[in-house]
């Protein structure tokens, strides 16, 4: 019985808006649709075409005519919109509206899950290409209403979950219709993100670079699968191939992630529509150069509550600046002619969207561009220009009626029509009953005053200067008044109800004793003066546009006002540590031009050069950190598998890490950014120059030889965290390599013989190693494993380039020298885990004594800014001569990285990566005074005080602005401390 009832209800709801050809069992069919004409309105037919006193005529959900001379058919429903403005309703192409999300999030288990949970699909659960939003719909009237309330009529809905998140649909916010009428395109887009699905525990990918590698492999696999070469079924790849021609939307987020998404797209010939984060202005040139179209959110940060100075201190300048700058983002995007559309996606409260949009317009974002970004542009992107985004003939009757200019903060959206269906948000043409009346009933006469906002009227009843508590309710034309009697002993009321007439109100009153009689309130003369005064008051409240705090490079403390530029520099009278056979040259000049060292000698003169008196100072090559983890975004380890050769740090260089600047202050000019040590075969490295203020791409040294990180020992066998992944012993580690290199060789054969081979990024990288085009730097501690890897490499006819950490290197330095591998070690670290028990600070000296190329590295953002001191420890421990010890952090790492033809010493023709020290650079008393990369001064100790003053000044100004915002009653948020993540080799975290 219950079931029948349910079915009946179900049928009934459908039947209300059944399609023409559906049978009808609850009545008779009706098909008549009347014309509707909205007249006398200001109509934006498009963002650039505005008509005054125009008419919009439509029928059956479609626009028939728009113009100033539209002939309105007889009997058409006419709605007078005098003084109102009509816009095409807005389109949000990045929404999760109406998606039925699963509720069963997997529990966090104690052990990691390495394999996928589905059969017949891709090997990775986070590739959800087969997910279709249109199969998981739950149209919610309430959510639709919220979107309509801010002007939207159409949305593209998808489920933002998974690295490839499946397809989205385009539908309208038409409560009257059903999905059959709402859906405009059930599969319009395919969606990408950098984040894992929340509904699978499969470990891979566990980092941003892992997500990027995974997407690339899917592209390769899709192509391969399409050739029919796969022996097994893969429904996910089939979907991926089928979705190839849809609109490809990438939820990138942060500005650097947008660049990353675009990079992947370019590699595979895909132009993603990129969802940004609102901070695009911080890297506007790079964003512009992508040539991509963006989906921009309008979520501006609330002011930080900085009233407690101790807490305020924790808020970084960059966060405070962002609060000031964020509302200018759209203006800057528009000024740069970057194509974009807008989304409500990041707004927790949809209402903020319209408010922020108005703010952006106030801050200089042109109105017509705002209209276009919400209407025409998204319509065009969705290939729906004929139906959406404008009010031309033939388009859907999707429009909003606004009390005035939509960007005026006092404007109200009266009506939002979707597919010809009217949704009233705020009654138009409500008659104003405000004023002063003579209220008469029961032979008594009162003064009645109705005032307040139109939506929230207030009434006051008085007689002989005694107030009678009054509640008013007005719903045109009905007036309801409840007036408290002046009986002071008991509560008693007069209840008045009536209607509005021309200039009076009248109706029936129920007296306190229950008797009924009539009442009438006649309007008195209006005093115009008071009305005008009100308007003036409002004008005074016009919000002021603050001055935008300048964007710096990068946009945080210590950022440069302009990108630093190359200079011609002449160091006079320096003690020059050449690092070459010339040794240390006293009282010597060095000339730098066009980013290169051009002359070294005495009495050099160059009229065009900026002279730097280096008397008593030491000039050296810049420090090169062979093992660094600074400047990396979202994860240093892709530990989701025991090999991750497919990932590369080059994908995730973070140019905005304060540690770049701090390293420069310690005389570091280049860093080799390594993958962590969570797995035997780690990821590829990025060799960067610390060009603070430049973009990641500009920092990466493109022509430097390419490296990959390997790792041995406790970390890869998961001794100190995690479990369940092969290998769990040093014995297993060897076999991981055997396995991968065996497979790599098989792959190579397959590639040579079979045109339909499956392109495998990981195997390609491993073959680069075998063919000596990529070099290994291997995290290592104990001698057994070090020896093993050398022997293994020899079996595959290549050599290991560098062992990093290599704390027991001294035990087999002779064998290392024989193999030809270098050792990049710590000066004195030990005792942090069992495998470093035999670590000794004499390691560098001993390895060097046996002919091993030795360098000293940091693996640590703090130590990296004192690498000169760490090099000096080799003088203490093992009596390494000073010049050689200095080379441990300059020329030797350059040699290990095979960039010594460009950097690492002071030699004519080399890159001008140099540091001016206050003292012997190996001395504890030495301070880096100037750090120069490619002939550009990136750090200058002399300017430090001035820079700190600027930071302090900007901070106090912004704090004052924030306090003012709070005093004005604006929403605030708790102060936020910016966390700068410091990675080490063994930093493993959930991405």
């Amino acid at each position: 019985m219950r079931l029948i009832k349910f079915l009946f209800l179900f049928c009934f709801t459908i039947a209300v808006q059944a399609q023409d050809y559906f049978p009808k069992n609850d009545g008779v069919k009706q098909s008549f649709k009347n014309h509707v004409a909205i007249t006398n309105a200001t109509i934006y037919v498009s963002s650039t075409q505005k008509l005054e006193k125009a008419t919009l005529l439509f029928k059956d959900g479609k626009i028939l005519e728009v113009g100033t001379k539209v002939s309105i058919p007889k009997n058409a429903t006419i709605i007078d919109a005098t003084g109102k403005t009509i816009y095409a309703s807005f389109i949000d192409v990045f929404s999760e509206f109406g998606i039925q999300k699963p509720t069963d999030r997997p529990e966090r288990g104690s052990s990691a899950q390495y394999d996928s949970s589905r059969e017949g699909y891709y090997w990775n659960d986070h590739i959800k290409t087969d997910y279709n939003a249109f199969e998981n719909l739950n149209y919610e009237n309430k959510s639709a209403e919220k979107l309509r309330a801010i002007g939207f009529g159409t949305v593209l809905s998808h489920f933002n979950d998974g690295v490839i998140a499946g397809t989205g649909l385009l539908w309208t916010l038409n409560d009257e219709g059903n999905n059959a009428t709402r859906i405009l395109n059930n599969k319009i887009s395919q969606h990408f993100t950098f984040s894992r699905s929340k509904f699978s525990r499969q470990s891979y990918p566990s980092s941003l670079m892992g997500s990027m590698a995974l997407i690339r492999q899917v592209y390769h696999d899709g192509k391969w699968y399409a050739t029919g070469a796969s022996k097994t079924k893969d429904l996910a790849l089939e979907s991926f191939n089928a979705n190839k021609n849809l609109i490809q939307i990438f939820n990138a987020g942060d500005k650097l992630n947008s660049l990353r998404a675009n990079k992947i797209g370019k590699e595979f010939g895909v132009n993603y529509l990129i969802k940004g984060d609102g901070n695009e202005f911080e890297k506007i040139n790079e964003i512009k150069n992508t040539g991509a179209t963006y989906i921009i959110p309008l979520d501006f940060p609330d002011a930080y509550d900085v009233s407690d100075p101790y807490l305020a201190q924790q808020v970084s300048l960059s966060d405070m600046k962002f609060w000031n700058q964020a509302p200018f983002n759209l203006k800057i995007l528009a000024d740069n002619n970057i194509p974009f559309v807008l989304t409500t996606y990041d707004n927790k409260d949809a209402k903020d969207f319209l408010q922020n949009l108005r703010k952006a317009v106030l801050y200089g974002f042109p109105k017509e561009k705002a209209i276009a970004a919400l209407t025409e542009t998204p319509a065009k992107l969705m290939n729906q220009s004929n139906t959406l985004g404008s009010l031309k003939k033939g388009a859907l009757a999707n429009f909003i009626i606004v009390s005035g200019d939509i960007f005026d903060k006092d404007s109200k959206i009266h009506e939002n029509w979707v597919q010809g269906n009217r949704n009233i948000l705020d009654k138009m043409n409500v008659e104003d009953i405000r004023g002063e009346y003579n209220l008469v009933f029961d032979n008594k006469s009162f003064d009645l005053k109705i005032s307040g906002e139109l939506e929230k009227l207030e009434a006051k009843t008085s007689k002989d200067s005694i107030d009678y508590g009054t509640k008013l309710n007005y719903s045109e034309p009905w007036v309801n008044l409840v007036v408290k009697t002046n009986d002071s002993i008991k509560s008693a009321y007069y209840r008045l109800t009536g209607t509005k007439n021309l200039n009076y109100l009248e109706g029936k009153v129920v007296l306190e004793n229950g008797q009924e009689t009539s009442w009438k309130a006649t309007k008195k003369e209006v005093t115009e003066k008071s009305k005008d005064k009100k308007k003036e008051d409002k004008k005074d409240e016009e919000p002021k546009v603050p001055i935008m705090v300048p964007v710096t490079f990068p946009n945080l403390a210590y950022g440069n006002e302009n990108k630093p530029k190359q200079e011609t520099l002449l160091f006079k009278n320096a003690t020059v540590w050449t690092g070459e056979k010339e040794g240390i040259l006293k009282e010597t000049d060095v000339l730098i031009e066009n980013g290169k060292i051009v002359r070294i000698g005495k009495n050099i003169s160059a009229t065009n050069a900026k002279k730097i008196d280096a008397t008593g100072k030491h000039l050296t090559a810049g420090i090169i950190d062979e093992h660094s983890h600074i400047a990396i975004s979202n994860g240093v380890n892709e530990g989701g598998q025991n090999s991750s050769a497919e990932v590369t740090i080059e994908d995730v260089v973070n140019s905005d890490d304060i540690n770049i600047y701090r390293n420069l202050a310690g005389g570091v000019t280049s860093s080799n950014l390594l993958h962590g040590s969570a797995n035997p075969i780690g990821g590829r490295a990025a060799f960067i120059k610390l060009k603070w203020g430049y973009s990641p791409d500009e920092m990466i040294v493109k022509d430097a030889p390419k490296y990959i990180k390997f790792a041995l020992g406790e970390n890869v066998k998961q001794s100190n965290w995690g479990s369940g992944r092969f290998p769990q012993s040093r014995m297993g580690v060897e076999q991981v390599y055997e396995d991968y290199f065996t497979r790599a060789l098989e792959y190579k054969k397959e590639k040579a013989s079979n045109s339909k081979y499956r392109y495998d990024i990981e195997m390609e990288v491993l073959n680069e190693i075998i063919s000596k085009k990529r070099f290994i730097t291997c995290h290592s501690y104990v001698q057994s494993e070090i020896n093993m890897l050398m022997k293994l490499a020899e079996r595959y006819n290549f050599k290991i380039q560098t062992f990093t950490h290599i704390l027991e290197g001294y035990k087999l330095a002779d064998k290392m020298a024989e193999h030809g591998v270098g050792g990049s070690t710590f000066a004195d670290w030990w005792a942090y885990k069992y495998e470093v028990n035999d670590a000794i600070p004499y390691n560098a000296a001993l390895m060097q004594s046996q002919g091993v190329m030795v360098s000293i590295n940091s693996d640590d953002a703090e130590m990296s800014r004192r690498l000169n001191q760490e090099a000096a420890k080799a003088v203490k421990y093992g009596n390494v001569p000073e010049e050689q010890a200095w080379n441990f952090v300059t020329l030797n790492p350059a040699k290990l990285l095979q960039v010594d033809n460009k950097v690492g010493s002071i030699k004519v023709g080399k890159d001008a990566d140099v540091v001016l020290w206050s003292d012997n650079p190996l001395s504890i008393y030495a301070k880096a005074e100037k750090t120069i990369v490619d002939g550009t001064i990136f750090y200058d100790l002399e300017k430090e005080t001035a820079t700190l003053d600027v930071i302090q000044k900007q901070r106090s100004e912004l704090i004052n602005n924030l306090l003012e915002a709070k005093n004005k009653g604006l929403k605030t948020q708790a102060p936020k401390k910016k966390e700068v993540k410091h990675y080490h080799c063994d930093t493993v975290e959930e991405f």
Partner: protein
Amino acid sequence: MKKYIFLLLLTTIAFGQQTPASKQTKSILILGGRAHVGNGTVIENSLISIKDGKIAIIGDGTLMKPAKHDIVINASGKEIYPGFIAPNTTLGLVEIDAVKATDDESELGEMNPHIRSIIAYNAESGLVEVARPNGVLLAQITPRGGRISGTSSIVQLDAWNWEDAIIKENDGIHLNWPRSYSRAGWWAEPGGIQPNKKYDEQTTEIQDFFNNAKAYAASKVSVKDIPYEGMKGIESGDKQVFIHADGEKEIIDAILFKKKNNIKKMTIVGGYYAYKNAALLVENNVSVLLRRVHDLPILEDEDVNLPFKNAKLLTDAGVLVGLQNEGDMERMQARNLPFYAGTCAAWGMDREKALQLITSNSAKILGIDANYGTLETGKSATLFISDGDALDMKTNKISTALIDGRQISLESHQTELYERYKEKFENK
């Protein structure tokens, strides 16, 4: 055979801790060295006579004629320093960071004044013997964790066991002051900082505990209350209160706490932002054992070199400052203590003043200055001779070190491995 294997295992697995030196019986004369007294002064061409573990005489060697001594050390061209002091350290409480079984640095519970570090101090720790060759000869062994972590003791670093190592037993309790703010979220998505809503509650708990401890001490009780027993000695000043705090507000509150409770001796440990309220510290006679010098600034906007300049800021303002190095890998970093002082000198401190940060200042702060911290007549002969400037790693090369006049071994597991492999390669 079995016995042999056992012995072999012992030598390879257990650290071959150096045999502690025996009590000084022979008089020692050190001649010609440049003596850094540790109080800001230097004696060029010094003469140091050492008898019964004490400095019998120290003075200008050009003005004195030495009597006959059993041992004469020529230190001309070399530098002589008082033994460096490592306060607030867990040396000997943990051997290998990642191996839990070797970790004895903290205990369950919040108010643990009764927990005593000294009995867990491993005098034979490999980390202890490695600190000595860089000049670190004294240390305050300090427990971690909880609100009151426990009671520390001060040791010298050449002993057969913890008992023999003691210089000052139970010198103070360590109180981790609550943070005035708390943070939500995690590093990737910081949720904002908010005033720690429990701050008042937490500080009240401390006050209550101190009140009760005072009441307990004044009462005649039949049953011992162990934690309150651990608080005895604070009132008399025998035990110092070390308050671990970095924030401005926390430091101010800690000073108010000192005043309210009439705490005789108090030191702020950490004190990263102490420089902002230096006058208040001076006024209340509160010293600072400063946060690790070789560290990054806490906040992005701060002077990138603030950790290097911090000691000078405080010292210039008149605060008594010592250096300590609590933090990551702190035990193995103990040997780098001299270079923290060196870095302070690089960033503007007078070198002899910087030396005081790890000698006399720390001795004063720890209350062992009657005997240690400077090279002065009558004090313990705890000192060392370095080839060069001991605050600079390039020249910190120690040939002789004495603790209470005992000439200690400067060898370690590490030097033994060095010698063994050097020999291996030389004989090749």
